[in-house]
Structure formats: C-alpha cells, structure tokens
C-alpha cells in the first residue's frame, strides 16, 4: 500500500546556490513550483515574489527550459526585524519530446509565473476507431 502512494510533499529548497557551470558572481534561489498535466499540455506555476513581470526571462535551449528572474536589491534600509531577503530566482527543467517548444505561453501576475507548455500535436492522445467486420 505505502509503496504505491505518491509523496506529494517535495522537499523545499531553502538553499541559495550558485548556478552551475558559470562564473557569474550572482546568487540565486530555487523558486518552489507546481507542475501538473492536462489534456493539452503541462502547466508550470512558480512563485517569484519581488520579480517584475518584464524582467522575468524564460528561455528554451536544447530542450532545457530556464526560468531566471532578477530581483531589485533591497533598498539600503536598516531593518528592525528581518525574516526574508530577496535573492534572484533561477530554475531549469528538462523538457520532454512531447512538448511543442515553439508554443509556450507565459503569464505573470502578483508575483506568480504561469507557463503553459502545450503537447505537440503528434503527442496528443488519439482515439483509433476499430473497424468491425
């Protein structure tokens, strides 16, 4: 029984990491995401608080989807009490063959980025009629 249940809670990344394979001094955090599948394709929802929609960069290169969002540095104010600091966001996903990479749509609102990744036509399920003699 237990083996068949899917763990819904994925570990949260609270670590600040440098992007691999680059020497960029900038640091990034991995934003939490929801990914779910519909008949039309995949939907990716990412929390990017503090990132202005026009500065969010979404790239697809060699089948890798990259979400990168720079965040304006905090104004140099003295905080009396501080629980968070804004750091730029960075996350990458490998896209499967099924995704139509040219038809990805993105929408950002209230600090949340929503990406629609439609399946390519040939990958959509198709019902095959069975001929009866």
């Amino acid at each position, binding site marked *: 029984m237990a083996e068949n249940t899917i763990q819904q809670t994925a*570990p949260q990344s609270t670590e600040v990491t440098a992007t691999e394979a680059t020497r960029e001094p900038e640091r990034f955090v991995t934003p*939490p995401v929801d990914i779910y*599948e519909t008949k039309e394709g995949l939907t990716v929802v990412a929390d990017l608080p*503090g990132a202005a929609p026009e500065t969010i960069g979404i790239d697809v290169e060699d089948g890798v989807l990259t979400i990168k969002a720079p965040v304006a540095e905090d104004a140099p*104010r003295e*905080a009396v009490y501080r629980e968070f600091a804004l750091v730029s966001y960075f996350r990458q996903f490998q896209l499967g063959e099924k995704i139509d990479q040219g038809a990805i749509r993105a929408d950002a609102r*209230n600090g949340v980025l929503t990406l629609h990744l439609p399946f390519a036509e040939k990958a959509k399920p198709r019902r095959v009629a069975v001929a009866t003699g």
Partner: protein
Amino acid sequence: MLGTNPFRELDLLRREVDRLFEGFASPPNRAAFLPGRAARSYPLINLYETADEVLVEALAPGVDPKSLEVTLQENALLIAGEKPRPAGEIAQEAWHRNERAAGRFLRQVKLPTAVDQDKVAADYRNGILTVRLQKSEAARPRRIAINAA
C-alpha cells in the same frame, strides 16, 4: 502515517533550527525563502523603522488582492488573505510537482511604536505587500532646545 519519511522530517527540523540561529550570528543574507509547507508563520515579514514611519513588508506571492485584508488595531497589524490553489480539478496522478503552498493565512505583527491610526497605506505589487504606517506624534523623535546660560 505510512507515507512520512523520517529522514525528511529530520531534515526539516534541522533547517528550522538553522533558521532560528541564523539571525544571531549574521544578517540573513541567504534568502529565508517561502517554504510553503513547513509549519511556520506565513507570510514572512520584514519591518523597517525611520524617524517618521514604520514599514512592514510581507512576502505573499499569488494572493488574490481582493482577499487581502489588512487591519490595524492599536499597536497590532493583522494581515489575512488567501492563496488559491491552481484552478480546476486536478487529479492526484496529474501532478508532477507540488511545492507551492495554498490556503488561508493570518498573521499578527506587533508594531514597535504607536502609529497614527488614520494614515495607513497598503500596496500589493509583484507578490509583496507593503504597509506604510505613520508614527504618532508622541512617538516621533523630538529635538529639545538647550538653554545656555
């Protein structure tokens, strides 16, 4: 509780302890980021104070602005709202990842000084709520003239 992984629980505990001690040693320049599911106060806040005003910043992405309620009562600021789940019915097996938290939240923030109950401005932009409060006259610093003989 068949599904719980004890190692994951331990890891979460370790992180929570790390977070608690972080503030003492150094300012949290690594982002204390919004782990949705850990049991902790939500939204995370920053509090700034200048000579004239108190500024409260809350990290609350994806909240419907209409559901957001900010109430000021005496010296306490109450922030309430709801972060909706993705719309529509999504079958359990359709999820590939589910890391974002959702649901109603409520947090009370005690303010460090008395504030003017009428001059409050709240602004929600890019998932960050900023509440700007004016200090009350009595709480502002005042320069005292010195009489020299």
